[in-house]
């Protein structure tokens, strides 16, 4: 191909077409879908968070909220479907097949693209978990549609398009991304970024059972084994109600035990900023922030953490952020609710002591 | 491939190493430059003044693509006590010339740019590699280097040590003495980001004009040192430095010193609303002429800060570094062309050439100052700035006291705190050191 045959390159700034010009064949695409993530019989809670959000989007669009459940065990699929209804789904697309015993990209992609092509949703949401990210990329590429990964906010704009907001440039900025002219509009959201909705007990809906034509012999990749994390020390940070975390301000690995002790007294989890992982003071599963865990506790106590943007995005969902920092100008005070300008190394043990005293006294009183 | 012998190996990719490598590569020598940083400039403290002349002699049209921030049109010299400053400002439209004389630069970017020129000139540049030792032959002639990547040594006809003030290679190989704590300053500095418009309004600038503030006084808490503030395009470099041996005797940390400087009532409003994004510390050789070590030997030359080539009084360093680098490069090229070996006697040409430049002339001129300031630090960095400030205040405060009495009061305050004899002595010594 010669240079002259090329069309002129697009202008350097802005996307080629930022106007909505939805091709005719996509106009039939309707409804908001959530892919319910099931591993080992249980639906991942991120799927319920997505259903809560999907409900709002569907209502704004005046369409149905669909949930996709797939697996090999009918009873657990039914259980997941029932939960999906309680969390807001109107309809559940249910695929039950022996090849779906474990998550495998190959099969899951086939099933999901088949469902999309058959029932034509306009929005498809997945959890930004290992499973969701593995599947979303394959599905979007197969369908040649746009996918906005790791969103922090979903919205419907005036024209009825999905406006997906996500951090960019290492979290320093946010951007709002649209998929105007392709369908479905796909997005993934990390666990704990969206609030968990209240389930409505006994709420039900329609089940659409979708038959698939799959043969284990055609499937290349085999699951030889699943080794569950039995390690009880694995942090459950995303779901903890109370999290105490430390940063470089603690100055040494030994001092980090002050964080753990306070977390213990409060029955919470402990975590830390990324440099602590890099220094080996804590394990990677305890890192909080953009490249670590997003948390949403009722109480978050941050000691000796400066509050860099990458940390901030992981903790902003906390109901109450208490920051201890010796520097009154530390950025963490920009988003903490309560601030204490103090030396964490002396205040943490004092807090541990005071908390345990109070809890004990109250216990005796009651 | 590693068995090849380079015409020259340059250790370090600061201004001096780049000047040397560029000069030689441009002249067709097979040059290897080794830098321990991730890239040239990555280890260098940001924000500095570039003196155009020294670079022009190496890359005449550098203004076309070098990353320059602002050209300096105004110089402010301040003596400060804790609440005031007394200033001498010089600003001239003449500095808005076609080829400005001084620029503010960000070293990380500037060094990277210079390094790209070195590569274009044909030198091989190896980053993230630290030279660990010099390889010598049986006659003690330097014939190559070893690096922290292990493997066979890399051979060269001459090694140019451009490793900066605390470069260890020369020291470890016994070519240079260990730099003494009273001939080197520790400077700490920060970059503060502010919008272009704010900087221009705050410093009375337009376009790419820039201001430099240099300050001394009680800001160094009685230690020998100075503070500075430069305007960059969208940031301000602010820093302070003191002689290392003074820090050692004082309980003030460099960081605390900088914090106090930034919070000085004369500095604080200049930084208001800015966002600090970088903190760095670096050593500056300040021993002057007397501290210059042996500069050449069999198979080696020292350039830049490694040779203590800094004029502390005028805050010049990179220009001396580039000039010594260039002259070393020219000397090696000259020997190469003559097919002469890089023996100590032949390389002495470098020293001869240097002696005719401003580098040696200036350093000689100021040779007495470092010791003078250091030995009288309580006066120069405490007493005198306070006295000057008091005098100014007495003079400018309108309070019904007649001017003759004011003059007497000023004179009295000077005399009562420092003996007339002592003060005259200091002035006399300062003039002598300066001469």
């Amino acid at each position, binding site marked *: 191909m010669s240079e002259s045959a090329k069309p002129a390159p697009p202008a350097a700034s802005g996307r080629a077409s930022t106007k909505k010009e939805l091709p005719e064949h996509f106009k039939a695409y309707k409804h908001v879908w959530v892919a319910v993530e099931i591993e080992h019989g249980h639906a991942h809670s991120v799927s319920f968070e997505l259903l809560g959000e999907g409900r709002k989007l569907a209502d704004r669009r005046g369409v149905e909220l669909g949930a996709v459940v797939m697996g090999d065990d009918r009873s657990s699929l039914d259980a997941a479907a029932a939960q999906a209804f309680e969390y807001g789904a109107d309809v559940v697309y249910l695929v039950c097949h022996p090849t779906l015993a474990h998550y495998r990209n190959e099969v899951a992609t086939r099933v999901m693209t088949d469902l999309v092509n058959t029932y034509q949703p306009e929005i498809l949401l997945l959890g930004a978990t290992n499973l969701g990210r593995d599947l979303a990329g394959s599905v*979007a*590429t197969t369908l040649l549609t746009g996918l906005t990964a790791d969103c922090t906010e979903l919205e419907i704009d005036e024209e009825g398009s999905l406006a997906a907001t996500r951090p960019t440039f290492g979290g320093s900025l*946010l951007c709002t991304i649209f998929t105007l002219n392709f369908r479905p509009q796909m997005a993934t959201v990390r666990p704990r970024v969206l609030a968990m909705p209240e389930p409505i007990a006994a709420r039900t809906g329609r089940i659409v059972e979708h038959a698939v034509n799959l043969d284990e012999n055609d499937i290349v990749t085999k699951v030889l084994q699943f080794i569950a994390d039995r390690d009880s020390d694995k942090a459950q940070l995303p779901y903890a109600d109370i999290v105490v975390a430390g940063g470089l301000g603690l100055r040494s690995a030994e001092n980090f035990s002050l964080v753990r002790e306070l977390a213990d007294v409060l029955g919470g989890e402990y975590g830390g900023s990324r440099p602590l992982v890099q220094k080996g003071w804590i394990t990677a599963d305890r890192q909080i922030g953009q490249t670590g865990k997003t948390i949403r506790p009722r109480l978050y106590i941050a000691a000796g953490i400066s509050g860099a943007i990458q940390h901030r995005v992981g903790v902003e969902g906390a109901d109450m952020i208490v920051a201890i920092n010796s520097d009154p100008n530390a950025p963490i005070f920009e988003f903490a609710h309560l601030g*204490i300008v103090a030396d964490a190394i002396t205040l943490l043990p004092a807090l541990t002591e005071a908390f345990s005293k109070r809890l004990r006294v109250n216990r005796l009183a009651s | 491939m590693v068995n090849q012998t380079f015409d020259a190996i340059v250790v370090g990719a600061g201004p001096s190493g780049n000047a040397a490598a560029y000069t030689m590569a441009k002249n067709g020598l097979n040059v290897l430059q080794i830098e321990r940083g991730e890239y040239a400039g990555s280890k260098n403290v940001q924000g500095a003044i570039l003196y155009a002349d020294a670079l022009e002699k190496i890359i005449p049209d550098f203004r076309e693509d070098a990353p320059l921030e602002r050209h300096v049109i105004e110089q402010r010299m301040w003596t400060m006590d804790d609440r005031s400053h007394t200033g001498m400002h010089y600003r001239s439209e003449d500095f808005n010339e076609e080829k400005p004389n001084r620029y503010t630069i960000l070293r990380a970017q500037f060094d990277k740019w210079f390094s790209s020129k070195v590569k274009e000139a044909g030198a091989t540049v190896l980053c993230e590699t630290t030279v660990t030792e010099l390889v010598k032959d049986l006659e003690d002639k330097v014939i190559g280097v070893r690096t922290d990547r292990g493997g066979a040594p890399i051979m060269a006809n001459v090694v140019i040590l451009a490793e900066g003030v605390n470069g260890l290679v020369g020291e470890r190989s016994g070519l240079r003495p260990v730099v003494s704590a009273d001939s080197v300053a520790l400077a700490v500095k920060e970059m503060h980001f502010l919008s272009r418009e704010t900087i221009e309004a705050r410093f009375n600038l337009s376009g790419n004009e820039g201001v430099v503030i240099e300050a001394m006084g009680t800001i160094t808490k009685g230690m020998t040192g100075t503070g500075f503030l430069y305007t960059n395009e969208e940031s301000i470099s602010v820093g302070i430095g003191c002689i290392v041996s003074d820090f050692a005797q004082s309980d003030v940390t460099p960081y605390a010193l900088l914090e106090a400087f930034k919070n000085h009532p004369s500095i604080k409003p200049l930084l208001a609303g800015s966002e600090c994004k970088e903190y760095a510390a670096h050593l500056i050789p300040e021993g002057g002429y007397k501290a210059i070590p042996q500069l050449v030997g069999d198979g080696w030359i020292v350039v830049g800060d490694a040779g203590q080539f800094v004029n502390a009084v005028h805050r010049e360093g990179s220009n001396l570094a580039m000039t010594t680098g260039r002259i070393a490069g020219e000397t090696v090229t000259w020997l190469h062309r003559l097919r002469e070996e890089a023996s100590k006697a032949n390389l002495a040409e470098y020293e001869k050439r240097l002696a005719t430049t401003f580098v040696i002339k200036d350093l000689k001129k100021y040779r007495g100052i470092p010791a003078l300031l250091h030995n009288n630090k309580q006066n120069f960095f405490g007493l005198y700035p306070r006295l000057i400030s008091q005098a100014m205040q007495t003079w400018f405060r309108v309070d019904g006291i007649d001017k003759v009495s004011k003059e007497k009061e000023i004179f009295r305050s000077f005399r009562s705190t420092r003996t007339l004899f002592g003060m005259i002595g200091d002035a006399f010594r300062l003039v002598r050191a300066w001469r």
Partner: protein
Amino acid sequence: MHIVVCIKQVPDSAQIRVHPVHNTIMRQGVPTIINPYDLFALEEALRLRDRLGGEVTVLTMGPPTASESLRKALTFGADRAVLLTDRYFAGSDTLATSYALATALEKIAAEFGAPDIVFTGKQTIDGDTAQVGPGIAKRLNYNQLTYVARIAETDLAAGTITVERRAEGGTQVLLSRLPALITMLEATNEMRRGSIENALAAASAKVITWNATDIGVTDLTKCGLRGSPTIVKKVFAPGARSEKASFIEAEGGSDLLADAVISAIFARAPAVEADLLEFAATQY
């Protein structure tokens, strides 16, 4: 065996600044690095090659300056570096990026031998989507193995590969076939230093540079901005919370301060207090 590693040059986001007034990224002077996650992929590839023989090709799509990252990969010991650069690729989202890279991989296969494994990092630190790897796999129809923590076995003769993959709540041991696309998990290995021989060779090595025409792109509407279904409409800085923290102070030492802090927490969040008491009831 032939292994290709896709690496991306990214701005070191630790050093990115947002313009305080215009809310735009100030790229000037921000150093670039190899996407840290890609180094785990590269090291794994080098180890496989060292063990089983063959070659490692590194591939990147980016501006001409991205060749710096490729050169660095050569320093570590990669055998060949390919830079894909063309203004038509500018503004690519994950779909367009995977298209360009997959097309380049076809050309690499034709010129230097079909890859047995294509590696990518888990995700980038600028795009941060973790989608480009799966996109490439789909386009090339390679078996997709994401979040691989360990390559347990590679049987070239049988064309099989066994990996441990990080899944939710555990590790999947997967048996798959080559060619495969692997996205490597972080912290699975440590990048080597690179010998002086490699470093010297890399300093003067030639980076193979291809544009869209070179790799045989026939439909330019699949590239760059045009080929990107996603549209970035707005970029903005995270808003500051309206009220800053209320500061708690107390005279007379840490104990009193600690007490004041607890009172403030309980006053603001009675639910936390209730929860804690409930928890305490089970403890003390």
